[in-house]
C-alpha cells in the first residue's frame, strides 16, 4: 500500500515541479544569471518605474471601489430582500466567464469614441478609453467578484441572530453594521481584498485593449513586460516579471496566512 502511496506522491509532486515550480525557479535563475546590476538597471529604467507606479495607482483606485461595493453587494445578497438576487449574483459572477480581451472590447463599445457614450464623453472632455480612467474601469471589472464571493458565505454562515439582538437593544443600521457585522466578516473581506489586489495587479488582457499600450504613458507593469519582450529586451522583461512574481509570492503568503483565519477548508 505504501508503494503506491509513494508512487502517487511522486507523480503529483513531479507534475507540480514540471508545471509550476520549475518554470518559476527558472525565471529567477535566468534573471539573476548575470548578477544583480543589470536587473537593477532594468527595474529602475524610467518607463519601468512609470509602469510600476501606474499599476499601483490603478490598483489603489480599483481595489477600494470593489471592496466597498463588494461588501455592499454581499450584504444585498445575504441580508437584502428584493427580487432579482439571481440577476445580481449572475452579474457579479460574469467577469469569471468573460475573457479579459472581451471585457476590454465591451468597455470600448460603451465608452470608446464610437461607443454608446462616446459622443457624450467627448463633449464633456472626458477621455476614458486610451487613458487611465478606462484602465481603472477595466481592472475593476475583472477583479469585481472576489470580495463579494468571499464575504457572502461568511455573512450567510454568520446568520442574523447577533444583528437582530443588536436591533432589539436599540442599535441603528450603521452602528449594527460597524460594531456587529463588520468585525465578524472582516477576515473574509480581507481575504477577498488580497485576491482582488492580486488580480488587479496582474490584469493584462482587458487593460491591453483599453489602454493603447503607449509606453511611458499607459503601460502598466504587465503591459511593460510584454513591451520589453517584443522589443527583444529580455533582461528588462524578465526583471519586471520578477518584480511581479515577487508581488505574487507576497500575495500567496498573505493568502496562506489568512487561510486559517477564515477557516477555509483547504488548509492541510
Amino acid at each position: 500500500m505504501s508503494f503506491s502511496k509513494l508512487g502517487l506522491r511522486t507523480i503529483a509532486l513531479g507534475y507540480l515541479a514540471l508545471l509550476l515550480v520549475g518554470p518559476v525557479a527558472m525565471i529567477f535563475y535566468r534573471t539573476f544569471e548575470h548578477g544583480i546590476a543589470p536587473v537593477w538597471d532594468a527595474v529602475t529604467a524610467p518607463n519601468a518605474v512609470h509602469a510600476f507606479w501606474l499599476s499601483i495607482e490603478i490598483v489603489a483606485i480599483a481595489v477600494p471601489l470593489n471592496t466597498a461595493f463588494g461588501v455592499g453587494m454581499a450584504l444585498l445578497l445575504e441580508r437584502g430582500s428584493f427580487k432579482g438576487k439571481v440577476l445580481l449574483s449572475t452579474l457579479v459572477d460574469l467577469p469569471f466567464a468573460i475573457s479579459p480581451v472581451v471585457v476590454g472590447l465591451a468597455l470600448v463599445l460603451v465608452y470608446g469614441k464610437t461607443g454608446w457614450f462616446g459622443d457624450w464623453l467627448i463633449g464633456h472632455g472626458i477621455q476614458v478609453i486610451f487613458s487611465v480612467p478606462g484602465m481603472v474601469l477595466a481592472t475593476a471589472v475583472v477583479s469585481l467578484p472576489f470580495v463579494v464571493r468571499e464575504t457572502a458565505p461568511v455573512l450567510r454562515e454568520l446568520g442574523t441572530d447577533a444583528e437582530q439582538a443588536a436591533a432589539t437593544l436599540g442599535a441603528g443600521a450603521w452602528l449594527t453594521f460597524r460594531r456587529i457585522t463588520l468585525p465578524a466578516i472582516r477576515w473574509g473581506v480581507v481575504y477577498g481584498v488580497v485576491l482582488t489586489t492580486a488580480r488587479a495587479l496582474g490584469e493584462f488582457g482587458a487593460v491591453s485593449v483599453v489602454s493603447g499600450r503607449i509606453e511611458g504613458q499607459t503601460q502598466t507593469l504587465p503591459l511593460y513586460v510584454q513591451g520589453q519582450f517584443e522589443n527583444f529586451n529580455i533582461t528588462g522583461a524578465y526583471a519586471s516579471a520578477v518584480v511581479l512574481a515577487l508581488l505574487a509570492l507576497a500575495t500567496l503568503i498573505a493568502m496562506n496566512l489568512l487561510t486559517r483565519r477564515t477557516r477555509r477548508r483547504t488548509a492541510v
Partner: protein
Amino acid sequence: MSATGSPTASAAAPRRLQAPALLGGGRAAGVLGKGMIGVYLSVLVLLPVAALLAKAGSGGLDAFWREVSGPQAQAAIKLTLVMSAIVVAVNAFFGTLIAWVLVRDEFPGKRTVNALIDLPFALPTIVAGVVLLALYGTNSPLGIDVAFTRASIALALLFVTLPFVVRSVQPVLIEMDRSMEEAAASLGAGPLTILRRIVLPTLTPAIVSGVALSFARAVGEFGSLVLITGNLPFKTEVGSVYVFSQIQDENLPAAAAVSVVLLAAALIVLGALTFVSRWRSKHVL
C-alpha cells in the same frame, strides 16, 4: 420601551427584522445603497455586456454568422474549444490526484506545496507566459522547446487552470467520512474498488465543478498565450487572440461576434454545471 427607539423597532417590526437594520432599516439609506450598487454594476458589467451583444447582432443574424464562420475565426474558435477540453480533462485527473496527495499523504514541505497551488491565481498571466517560456521555450535548459506550437497552448492553459480542480476537490476530501471506506473494506472491497465505487463517486460533484470553472477560464485565457504561442493564425491563434487582432484592425463587429461565441461557450458549461448540481442535490444529497 422600544416605542421611541431605533427605526427597526417600528410597528412593522417582525418582517422588517428579517433583513435587520442593515438595509431595511434606514429606508432612504437602503434605497440609496441599492441605487449606487445598481449604477456600479451597470457601468461595469451590464452596459458593457449589452453593448457587446448589440454589436455582435448589429448586422443581423447573417452578418453575425458570416463573422463567426470565416476561416480564420473558425480555426481560432475550434482551437480554443478543443484545447480547453483537452486541458480540463487532464486537470480532472491530475487535479484530483494532487488533492488526494495533499489531503491523505504526509511529507515534509507539504504545507508549502499546498500554498504553491494558488500560484497561478496570484501570478499575472503575462508573467505565467514568460515563466513557461523560460523553461520550455527557445533557450530551454531542458531542451524542450514548445514555443509557437499547439503544445504551448496546452502548457499555458494547464498552468493557469491548475488550482481549480485541486481547490474544488480538497474540501470534499477533507470532510469525507473515512468510515465509508472502512465499511467497504470490511465488506471485502480492495483499494481499487473502494476508489472506484466509493471515493470517486463522492468526489464527482467537486471534480465537475472544478472542471467547469477550468473550462470557463481556459476559453477566455489571453495573457499567458500571447508570448509563447506566437499567435500564428490557423496554427496557434486562439479565440481571445483573434478577438484582440480584430480589435486592433478596428473590425469591431467581427471581434464582438467571436467574443459572443466564446462567452456563450463558457456560460453554457457553467450553466450545465449548476443544473447538474441542483439535480444531484435534490436526488442524492
